């Protein structure tokens, strides 16, 4: 039997492993994302791949579109009528912007940590149990087990184990932020979206969160929005620098920080340091 190998087949053979590798490496792909608020073009043709089990830092000055990009990823842009979103965002090969799938289920693939902690108006225990129950788990022992596990993951268990039934409002702001992280982890997300999570915290609490992120990236992919250059330098495995709604530099932090190409980022680095 004779096998004919054409040029295109060879090309495909060479290309296929590369495509597969890409898909395995990146957990989230954003293609041609544009966001408008009225006539204002907030995000301009964003194309981005987020590597799995890494910390990707979205860095840039205030108002550059970092938070909007984060909100687009878990469709919280739906809450704002004025925002018009177009493009594609693929998570596990699902285009979540143009899907007919259940949006709450898509959102559970991501845990959100906002600038200020917003604990739910219930006890510490119920804050963590909330997401677990939403997943349909009703067994009390299983919920108890998961609540403890997630509170341990964020290093809060020993601080709150004797007051699980107290209102989450009574915790310090740093503890509240960790509680919100535990609550987000309880829905077993693939990605953690963190929007300047340490901006309202004291240096000690900030350091705890930073260290947690280093641990958590073993199991989760983290997208961290920050305008603090030092935090980006400490944590990032992948840097995305944004300015006026555009990605102007991205890549490995060693490359990006050492061989900064654009004047905007150079200026930002000078001011930031």
């Amino acid at each position, binding site marked *: 039997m004779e096998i004919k190998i054409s040029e295109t087949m060879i090309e495909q053979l060479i290309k296929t492993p590369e495509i597969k590798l890409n898909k395995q490496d990146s957990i989230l792909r954003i293609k041609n994302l544009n966001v408008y608020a009225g006539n204002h073009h907030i995000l301009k043709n964003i194309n981005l791949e987020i590597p799995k089990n890494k910390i990707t830092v979205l860095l840039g000055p205030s108002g550059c579109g970092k938070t909007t990009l984060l909100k687009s990823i*878990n469709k919280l842009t739906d809450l704002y009528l004025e925002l018009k979103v177009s493009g594609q965002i693929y998570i596990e090969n699902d285009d979540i912007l143009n899907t007919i799938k259940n949006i*709450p289920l898509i*959102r559970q693939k991501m845990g*959100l940590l906002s600038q200020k902690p917003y604990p739910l*108006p219930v006890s510490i225990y119920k804050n963590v149990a909330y*997401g677990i129950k*939403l997943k349909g788990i009703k067994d009390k022992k299983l919920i108890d087990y998961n609540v403890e596990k997630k509170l341990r993951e964020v290093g809060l268990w020993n601080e709150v184990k004797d007051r699980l039934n107290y*209102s989450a*409002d009574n915790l310090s702001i740093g503890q509240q932020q960790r509680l919100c992280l535990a609550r987000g982890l309880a*829905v077993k997300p693939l990605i953690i979206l963190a929007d300047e999570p340490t901006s309202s915290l004291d240096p000690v609490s900030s350091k705890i969160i930073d260290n947690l992120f280093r641990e958590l990236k073993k199991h989760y992919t983290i997208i961290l929005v920050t305008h603090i250059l030092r935090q980006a330098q400490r944590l990032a495995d992948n840097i995305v620098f944004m300015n006026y709604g555009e990605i102007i530099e991205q890549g490995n932090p060693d490359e990006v920080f050492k061989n900064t190409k654009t004047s905007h980022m150079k200026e930002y680095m000078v001011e930031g340091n």
Partner: protein
Amino acid sequence: MKKRKIVEEIIFRILTGIASYSLIVILCLIIIIIFIKGFNALSLDMIIKTPKGGYYYGGEGGVLNAIVGSLYIAFGATLIAILIGMPAALYINVHLVRYRRTQNTIRYFIDALWGIPSIVYGAFGFTLMLFLGMSASLLAGIITVALLITPIVIRTFDEVLSTIPKGLHEASLALGSTRAEMAFKVMFKQGFSGFITAVLLAFGRGIGDAASVLFTAGYTDLVPTNLDEPAATLPLAIFFQLGSPIPEVRERAYASAAILTIIILISSLTARFFSQKYSKSNLK
């Protein structure tokens, strides 16, 4: 210049202080006058007996008919107002959160409803009653008062819900809540003390209003046992007794007013107790 600022500060403090404390003085005066004027007529009979023959000429009896009638109407109307008002306020703040303009239009209409005088509600209730072929009854009274107080429940609860930060909306949606789960498990709990205030305000307005029940609930010396029977109310009992030329009957009007005030104070204290017990920082 510095001295002028100090004088300004003192004058401002005195004026604002007078404005605040004068309200407390007025409330105390109202309560004292009612109790002094009605003191002689206040007796156990007033609250456990219905009017007997010749009551309105100084004969034996009490205003149990009006107390029970008022409580029935106020509780019934408040229940209806909660059933309509709570979902409406949640809808405005959960589902319409993107649609500012629609939100404001709805709020404008509800404010307009709140501003309509209760006698107009009474007249509307009366027309509605005739249209449905009903006679003056407990049910007609409950429906009319419910119309009067539903806007109060909606707008008061809405005011509290609208102050809930958008971050909490986002946090609960990000966890994978549906909007209904967010409304009842997060927003309702967060705004619970405001909800209690809304219910209390509505109950107080409902139990104290005379004009809306004048044509719709009617008046009777009997305690109503059925929704289609007429029902007496305390505001109308006060009104009828106060118009009497006989001093003892007028005293009974003040005694009835005292009873009404006590009911409102009790409901206010109960609501305050529950709203503190279930306030956000005590929630378990």
